[in-house]
């Protein structure tokens, strides 16, 4: 009896302690934004990521578990630029949650606050799954992370003014660490300048742009369409004329196409973490860039 009472008391305490420990529910569509929210909000927020590094954020289903999470969210942070167009609108309308509808402080599309690359001049589905407002994978340019951190801090302060000082202080610390890391990465990545790479999907563009690397081809014949034998054969030919130094792919891609090209051309293939959790070392945003650069340097030499 006593034991039961103890358990009840303990569970009562833990229930009472829960809201104080996690005041804010943050729903992030992707791991990188979950990681950023965690950096900036610390224990003031409970952060949930809708996807893992092993999922293609474009092909996610509006699963019941995701609707349930959005239902209780105070802030939704996503890449935007039509990346989540196949599932996020459903989560928003099904959730019955006014706090996170587009236009409110609780809805944040990261890509709106950074200069976007590859804004198509012609929007036509015959060109593949093009994004009319530009490439949505903005997080692989460290400068963009800093920009989104500013907006996210503003939003956190706006939604949870009681903890404003905490968010501002954490943002200050984060920016200082990020600046230091960025100057380190710039030095390290200097050796990557001009290096030609073959990508799987156009999800590395911001990194290539930041590091000054050159995209020499992509395994997908058109954005969003899986590699075809004909296209791979053409790539093999192209690599004879304009050889790349490395073939990169992301954890959510099957490695087979990259390995095929690598075998035929003797160009090494390499998996990059793409987002937080993509490799063991990419534990947070710092680890993501550390490991991406380290892997490239080790392969390109």
């Amino acid at each position: 009896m006593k034991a039961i009472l103890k358990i009840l008391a303990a569970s009562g305490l833990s229930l009472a302690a829960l809201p104080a420990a996690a005041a804010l529910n943050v729903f992030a569509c992707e791991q990188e934004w979950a990681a950023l929210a965690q950096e900036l909000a610390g224990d003031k927020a409970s952060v949930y990521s809708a996807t893992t590094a092993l999922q293609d954020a474009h092909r996610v289903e509006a699963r019941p578990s995701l609707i349930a999470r959005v239902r209780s969210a105070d802030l939704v942070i996503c890449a935007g630029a039509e990346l989540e167009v196949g599932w996020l609108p459903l989560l928003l309308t099904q959730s019955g949650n006014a706090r996170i509808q587009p236009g409110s402080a609780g809805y944040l599309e990261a890509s709106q606050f950074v200069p976007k690359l590859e804004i198509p001049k012609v929007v036509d589905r015959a060109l593949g799954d093009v994004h009319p407002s530009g490439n949505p994978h903005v997080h692989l340019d460290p400068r963009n992370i800093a920009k989104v951190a500013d907006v996210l801090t503003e939003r956190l302060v706006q939604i949870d003014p009681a903890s404003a000082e905490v968010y501002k202080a954490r943002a200050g610390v984060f920016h200082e660490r990020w600046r230091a890391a960025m100057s380190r990465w710039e030095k390290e990545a200097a050796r990557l300048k001009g290096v030609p790479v073959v990508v799987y999907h156009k999800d590395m563009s911001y990194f290539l742009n930041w590091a000054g690397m050159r995209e020499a081809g992509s395994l997908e014949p058109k954005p969003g369409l899986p590699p075809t034998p004909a296209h791979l054969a053409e790539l093999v030919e192209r690599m004879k004329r304009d050889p790349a130094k490395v073939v990169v792919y992301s954890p959510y891609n099957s490695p087979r196409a990259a390995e095929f090209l690598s075998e035929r051309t003797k160009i090494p293939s390499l998996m990059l973490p793409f987002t937080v959790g993509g490799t063991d070392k990419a534990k947070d945003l710092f680890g993501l860039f550390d490991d991406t650069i380290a892997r490239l340097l080790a392969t390109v030499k």
Partner: protein
Amino acid sequence: MKKAKLMVLAVAALGLPHAATAQTQDELRTLREQVRQLDKRVSEAEQAAIQASSRPTGENAMNPAISVILNGIYSNLSQDPNGFRINGFTPTLGEVGPGVRGLSLGESELALAANIDHHFRGTLIASISPDNDSIGVEEGYIQTLSLSYGFTVKAGRFFSGVGYQNQIHAHAWDFTDAPLASKAFLGNQLGEDGVQLKWVAPTPLYFDLGVELGRGRQFPAGPEGGRNKNGVGSSNVFAHVGGDLGTSVAWQTGVSYLSTSPQDRTFDDPDSTGTTVTNSFSGRSRLWVLDGILKWAPNQNPTYTYFKLQGEYFRRKEDGNLTYDTTAASLGAQTGGFASGQSGWYLQGVYQFVPMWRVGYRYDRLNAGTTGNGLVDSGALTAADFPILAAYNPTRHTVMVDWSPSEFSRVRLQAASDKSRSDVTDKQVFLQYIVSLGAHGAHKF
């Protein structure tokens, strides 16, 4: 500043000409100013770039999302589709057969959707029928965005939340046609004019509860188009539970209860004299549906492979009065008590074994169950006067393979052995394309 002064002193002490240092100082100042200006211009340009890359241009930026669904089909049916019926079950007011033989255009769909303001979202889905040159409103509803606490209200015409597949548009179905149970109990697909209130629980495990009040414009209500009365002609209550199991499985299961009071719901049936007579039912109709869906995809990434298992169980009870030959075309109008308890179910699995390619199998079964017909029991008429109501358990096997070269197009080949009719087996083959143009749609789980 101090450092600069010290340097000047040091330079002076070294005996270098003073004028040269002053010039360096000036140059340095100008350079600093130039760098500051440049920095400002760069950040301004960057801001402009963000603005430019994020701002939609043109007057049509406020247009709703528009998408069009086109589909065409080639049907090869061993039995005449005009004679299609589901034996053992009351016909459902509308057309539920396998369509016409040969090449035909399916219903084209035009969908418009946008947020109306910060309170409402509007959706219109018009279906353009290829044969009688008519445009129908498949769905046209508004939906609240700002209610909070997990509540949403939908009003207008929408596919009822009865069961699982009923809410999904035909173009997103995994097979060319509806399950037999949907055909027999919901007249293919039940679209209601009404109001839906739904609540989603604030729990990590998904739970929703909803109620729909409608006019009763379609089967199982009646007559066709709804009753001429104030108030509510049909009500539906539903609940769903769903979540994830591990990292690769997602599931949802639901139960719903649809209750209507059909009045003069008519159906045609040839009686014992061979005359096609019109019979009508008035009374109560209650339908329970139990549904479940389970999806497996490695790490929830359905790009390469996935498997989807879906099933629904329907159980209907009807009681009231059946009037035979309402137009007195044969033996004259007579009314007797009528009660039935019937059920049906289907189970289907779809497997994407490589990107773009899927195979699927579906099994359908209906149980005519028990029917008490007062007119037959009293001896006023015989069972031969109601041939369609004679006990029979229809079944169907369906297999399909489809190819989706992109998210926006699909070509499907389907074959079925359909025993909806008690006397014949219809061997069906369908070859179909379904494509979507325009806005990227979002599909329900």
